[in-house]
């Protein structure tokens, strides 16, 4: 009896494995020597930081990039570069209470109009622009030529759904786009 059940199970397992197709996303830690030298030089020059910096190589579908992550002056930075070392964006982790009032008001308005209940998990300010403009902004905190956006990860409950979302808001706090965050199953922890 046990043998029969085991065989049936194994047949089911192999048939399910054969049908499984997923999009592969991967990020792995790399040494700075594996990163394009112009990217490493840019971060070291602009942020004046060589220690406690972690580099990651990320692939998402066809896209590949390098990302430097580090803390400076109690802020967590992520600086992303394309595969050839061209700067793509800078993200800084920020607390809700430190957002500009107008941004908070607009994001709150969006939440109240679209959800019954929300809870923010993480906010990052996203800075994009030309290398020189971003460099000036980091050094002097003054630049009118960089684009500021807010990436907000939040839990949202509606009358029919309870989901995790990543919303991208513009510098005024108006929603540009949002996408659902799908958590990987954790069945190995629960069953």
């Amino acid at each position, binding site marked *: *009896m046990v043998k029969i059940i085991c065989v049936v199970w194994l047949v089911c*397992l192999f048939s*399910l494995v054969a049908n499984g197709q997923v999009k592969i*996303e991967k*990020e792995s830690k790399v040494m700075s020597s594996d990163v394009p030298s112009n990217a490493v030089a840019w971060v070291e020059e602009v942020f004046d930081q060589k220690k406690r910096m972690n580099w990651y190589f990320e692939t998402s579908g066809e896209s590949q990039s390098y990302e430097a992550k580090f803390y400076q002056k109690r802020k967590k930075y992520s600086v992303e570069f394309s595969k050839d070392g061209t700067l793509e964006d800078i993200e800084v982790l920020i607390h809700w209470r430190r957002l500009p009032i107008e941004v908070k008001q607009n994001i709150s308005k969006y939440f109240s109009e679209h959800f019954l209940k929300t809870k923010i998990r993480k906010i990052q300010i996203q800075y994009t622009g030309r290398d020189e403009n971003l460099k000036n902004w980091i050094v002097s905190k003054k630049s009118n030529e960089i684009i500021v956006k807010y990436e907000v990860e939040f839990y949202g409950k509606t009358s029919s759904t309870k*989901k995790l979302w990543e919303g991208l808001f513009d510098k005024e706090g108006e929603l540009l786009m949002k996408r659902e965050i799908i958590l990987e199953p954790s*069945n*190995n*922890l629960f*069953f």
Partner: protein
Amino acid sequence: MRKLLLILFLLLPIQIMAQGTVRLFGFFPEFQVGFKATEKLKVIGKIESQHGLAEKFEGEDLDVGYFHNLTDFQGFLGTKVNPFIDIAGGYQYRVNSRGDNSHRTIQQISILQLPRNYKIGHRIRFDQTYSPFEKNDYRVRYRVSFEFPIEGKSLDPGEFYLVFSDEILYSYQARVSGLENRAVASLGHLSKGRQKFQAGIDYRTDRFFDPDLRHRTWFKFGWYLNF
């Protein structure tokens, strides 16, 4: 790093046995399949089987030899309360080597926390075991698990991870209470086909209220599929 962990896992039971505290040692494979039957309904199927290799009683020599201890067939239906909380109910049929096969009903709530780059899983489970040979056994269990990626800031396909868990079980059978503890340390790998493989040590202690405290050490390896 990987070699070091592997050596640690392999040596741990030997070291415990050398101290004379182990009563039972064996291997413990498990297969698990999970898939979404509908938008809200998740189905989990699982087989786990315990196979003894060595047994030692107080004051006696180590008895080395293979024996099948038990095999469990489990099925669960679950749903999400929200992205972090799941509830599930299940049934288990146990094939016991002694012939006293049993039925079990299971109810559980699980909570997922994502503090930084690792996962914390909490599981509160109630189960009721029915056997024609014994009085009904009622248990309350709490398990906390930690899953840490080894190779990056998050666990991605093709990478290794570590899992540590501890579970405390309180049982009540025929007006007698029992306690059991289960500690597990495993090395895992998430494959590109969304499969997880884990291998590690499952160390169980029970009969705390009896004069013969029991220790069981299993070399556990699991194959977990999600669709």
